[in-house]
């Protein structure tokens, strides 16, 4: 097929645009994969001290109002990198065991089979944490908020007994959805 010079020029421009955008998108994908495996990259200048690892005796977390029932796995931060799992919810071992005084930190991927539903949780909803060798404990959601990854003050230790559960949300995972629940004795 014979194509005109004008069409050739147009094809050249179009092909260049496609190649440029394709390369940018592939670079972006590379960046996101790298970022996901190096979560410390999301860090800024805020930091705070945590305790030494707690003994792990957690089993699962259940949020009936949004149909979440997931196993809990222990996680650590090593060299600024947060361990995570694709099988359930991660519990940061260097935060207090849920139900003890302080701020217990749990987090998980926003996949549909994990914490994808978490942003639907409402204040007043119940969260149950089950333990390997103890009775379950109930927490009542007190706050929910969409925050920036650098708002790490939400993880600061507290003098009440609470859990802070969070997952990624927003465009390109640029935000974190947090749910703060306070410990309530099960009657």
């Amino acid at each position: 097929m014979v194509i005109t010079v004008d069409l050739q020029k147009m094809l050249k421009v179009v092909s260049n645009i496609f190649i440029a955008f394709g390369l940018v998108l592939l670079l972006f994908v590379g960046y996101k994969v790298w970022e996901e495996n190096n979560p410390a990259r999301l860090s800024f200048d805020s930091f705070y001290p945590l305790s030494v690892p707690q003994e792990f005796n957690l089993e699962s977390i259940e949020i009936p109002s949004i149909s979440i029932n997931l196993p809990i796995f222990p996680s650590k931060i090593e060299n600024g990198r947060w361990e995570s799992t694709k099988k359930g919810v991660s519990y940061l071992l260097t935060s207090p065991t849920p139900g003890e005084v302080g701020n217990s930190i749990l987090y998980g991927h926003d996949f549909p089979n994990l914490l994808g539903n978490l942003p639907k949780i409402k204040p007043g909803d119940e969260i149950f944490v089950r333990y390997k060798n103890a009775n379950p404990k109930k927490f009542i959601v007190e706050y929910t908020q969409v925050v920036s990854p650098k708002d790490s003050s939400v993880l600061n230790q507290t003098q009440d007994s609470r859990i802070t559960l969070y997952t990624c949300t927003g465009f390109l995972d640029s935000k974190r959805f947090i749910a703060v629940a306070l410990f309530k004795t099960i009657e």
Partner: protein
Amino acid sequence: MRKTVSLFVMTLFLFMASTRNVLAVDEPNFPLCSNPQGALVVSYNSGVHGIPGDLSEHVGSDKVYSLTSNTLIQCFCSVSGDGIQTNWWMVSSLTDEQKRILQSEGWILIPNGALWGLEEAPYMAKNSNFSCLSGSTGGNESLSQAGAPICNSSVPEAPVLLSVVRNGSEATLTWTKSALADHYVISYGDSPSSFQFGVPDTGNVTTFTIRELNPNKQYYFKVIAVNNCMPSQTSSSGVGGFGQVLGLAATGEEKTIYFAFIVGLGLLGVGLVLHGYNSRSSKNA
């Protein structure tokens, strides 16, 4: 090909520029109402309250926490459970141009804070939303009880614990000086969740030795600066098994990555095919 490279660089630049905030003023950090820091200075369990930039009346509870000498957070929780956090920032030292930049970033200029029960100085205020259990604002009541005497002294900056040197039954702590502090408080304990021991007043020093510790136990320490009656936040780093947390971990969004990968690969493939076809056509012509 040179054009392709130029276009690629330009696209990359535009993409990156679009994701960056251009900000000529350093904004202070504000904690969240779901885990407020600082000292509780105002607390109302109910009533009608004002929100900057919003002329309507808001009914619910309201608490104000003083963070530093020029920053506060206001945590309002409506009776329907809609929370509004207002970050207040005294901006006497900022130029008009800097204030204008902040306004373009969503800050609201309050020319006189006195009208809002604050100091007689210009403030910038910024609102954000959260959800709360109706009637609650500020999660950490035990930090400062509502109705407690109000301390009007400025909040000193939190010291940074630089080192803890253990030597048998002694531990020597060194921390950074906090400008407004007139003395420091040390809390310590043998459990990370229980700081059962303390030194109520070290004097205005930046190093202190604690004695009579059990040499076989690991201890955890934190330091608080105090200005008259106003405590700072606890020291921002600890020693003795303490780690550091750097922001909230990414929890991934694989859909976006897969989508971008497929589209990117598709665009690149189509671009290369068109490029090859065009080259062949040019040669044939």
